[in-house]
């Protein structure tokens, strides 16, 4: 080595390399970022733009301020859809949650044939929602549906008609389908969490001489809360947004008895062609969820050690 200039590359190329190296991570995340921007961010920003404009039949006309929001919030049909969704979510999700947890605990007891059972449990969640919808439409299709004929008709319920045509019970049938579809998934998610719990604290509890109930409520459950919170939140959001199965089974009917905000937005867009107001609906739902999720996140982080 005689001098520095001989061994080190010229200053400019080092700088260029530094620049390249700084760009490298961005290069790696670029494909997913571009996808995200194109399919999520741009449409979302466009929806916000639309919500402030008069847009009917695919033509964006003049700026409307908050008019879309005002007419939406004054619309009884909007509030009906919120209450339908709330009923749906607050019945379906807790049941899925508890059944899932109970199922996970049973799976954890070294059930025979577990390795066969687990792949089967994935099936409802793996099915396309449209398929699930069609499946249950047929199963509960009045006098020729497998379940409706063998169960409902036998006891004189919903004669000659589908439960999905009943204004009083259609929503509960939808709830049932949702439970059917998502309980096994919850079960598997909780089961995985259960299996991942450290074994040592359970040994300590055995030494302490704690009974099974006490172990469950004071040890298993608290140790699982972070997972329960995350899975519960995801399912909650997902249940609120459910569209496909409902679209196939009832499309909001009879009347507006099963019309959730997703179905309503769809109708507003493709039946009433009031795109401005439909966008306003989408934005309101988004804001509500944004606030809700943030509150949940903060609480879960502080109280439950989740996230």
């Amino acid at each position, binding site marked *: 080595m005689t001098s520095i200039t001989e061994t080190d590359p010229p200053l400019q190329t080092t700088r260029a390399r530094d620049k390249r190296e700084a760009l490298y991570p961005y290069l790696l995340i670029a494909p997913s970022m571009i996808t995200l921007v194109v399919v999520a961010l741009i449409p979302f920003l466009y929806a916000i733009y639309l919500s402030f404009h008069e847009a009917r039949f695919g033509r964006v006309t003049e700026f409307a301020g908050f008019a879309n929001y005002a007419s939406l919030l004054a619309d009884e049909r909007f509030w009906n859809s919120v209450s339908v969704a709330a009923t749906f979510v607050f019945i379906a999700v807790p049941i899925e949650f508890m059944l899932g947890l109970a199922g996970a605990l049973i799976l954890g007891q070294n059930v025979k044939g577990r390795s066969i059972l687990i792949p089967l449990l994935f099936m409802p969640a793996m099915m396309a929602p449209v398929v699930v919808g069609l499946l249950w439409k047929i199963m509960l299709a009045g006098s020729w549906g497998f379940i409706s004929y063998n169960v409902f008709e036998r006891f004189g319920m919903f004669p000659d008609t589908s439960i999905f045509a009943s204004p009083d019970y259609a929503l509960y049938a939808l709830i049932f389908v949702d439970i059917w579809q998502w309980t096994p998934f919850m079960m598997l998610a909780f089961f995985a969490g259960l299996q991942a719990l*450290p074994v*040592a*604290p359970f*040994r*300590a*509890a*055995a*030494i*302490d*001489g*704690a*009974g099974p109930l*006490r172990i469950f409520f004071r*040890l298993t459950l*608290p*140790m699982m*809360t972070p997972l329960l919170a995350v899975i519960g939140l995801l399912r909650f959001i997902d249940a609120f947004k459910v569209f496909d199965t409902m679209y196939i089974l009832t499309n909001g009917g009879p009347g507006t008895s099963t019309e959730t905000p997703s179905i309503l937005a769809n109708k507003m867009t493709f039946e009433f062609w009031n795109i401005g107001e439909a966008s306003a609906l989408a934005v309101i739902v988004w804001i509500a969820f944004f606030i809700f999720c943030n509150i949940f996140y903060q609480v879960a982080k502080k109280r439950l*050690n989740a996230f």
Partner: protein
Amino acid sequence: MTMQPKTIDAALSGGVCARNLTKSFEHEVLSQVSLDLRPGEVLALTGPSGAGKTTLARILAGLERPDSGTLAFGGRDALPLTPGQRDVQLMFESYALYPHLSVVENTMSPLVAAHVRSGRKRDKARDATNRATTEAVLELLEIAHLGHRLPAELSGGQKQRVALARALVREGALLILDEPISHLDAKLRHKLRGELRQRISRRASPSLWITPDGVEALSVGDRVAVLSHGRIEQVGTPEEVWQRPANMAVARLLGDPAMNLIPLRRDAAAATPTLGMPGMSLALDDRLSALAARATGDRVVLGIRPDALDLAAHADMAEAHGEIYANEPFGKHAIVTVQLKGGQIVKAKGSMPWAAELGGGIGEGIGRPVRLKIRQEAALLFDHEDERNLGFLK
């Protein structure tokens, strides 16, 4: 070796009596382990890692069932009993703290659990007593200021002390401490070793103190049990185990550095009983020659503690030759490692000036020739075949 009576000893009414415990997982972990824990005693169980110490602890506690053997608590068959029913306090080597409970709650859990089991309602007086007891234990272990932290917010040594506090907070039928002070810093370890020992030896129930450190076992145990490869090699007072190790496994484990074990062959050509190997020749005194005569073959292993090995540069100590392999100063003493002519490594322990003179400077002298003399009155002889101590009478 302990005697192995066929029936459970009724005299051990308050103690624990294990007989012929055997346990295999993929291979045999415990083999015919018999052990008595007498009321009030501290039994130190030591052995190299993988010897089966923790498995034995878990069988005694009831977390694991032995494949065969019997176990009695206070003369009563304990094998059908759950850990809670056995009333064992176990400090886990892995701590096993409840991750969602604070230090105070973790420590208090055995008290609360016992209270719940008794079926009585919560009352304020009991709660206050529990709290006070918990505080006192945390105080002893110097972690009272961490009371409200969660285990995840503690260092390894702090977690170990919480686990220890939880095991100590309540006296049961048996206390098992699985490596209770091994992850603490040296200063705290020295302090706690004495305090902990004093505290648990005041108890009426027996305690089992598990440690891989033979020296720690000697200092804390009323008796010491040595476990190696799933077998109990020796049970005895610290003096017995130290002075008369039953076999080479025990000798290897106790002492720091461990006893030198030098394989030698009886020299048939010599006029007087002599042991030798290349570069070493040892004319035996009467005691050692009598012991050597008991050996199965003509090969024996000489055991000599590092502090009973004289090293010098002088020519008059010509029992063995070697050269200095390492010269390690430790402040108040030094350890000189010597490679004998035959390749055998031995360690000698002595004062700092001694080591400095030998090496020509502190920590120096590697490669220097030295001569070695064995203090025969302090030496032990082991059989080369079955590794038993030839001077050990059952």
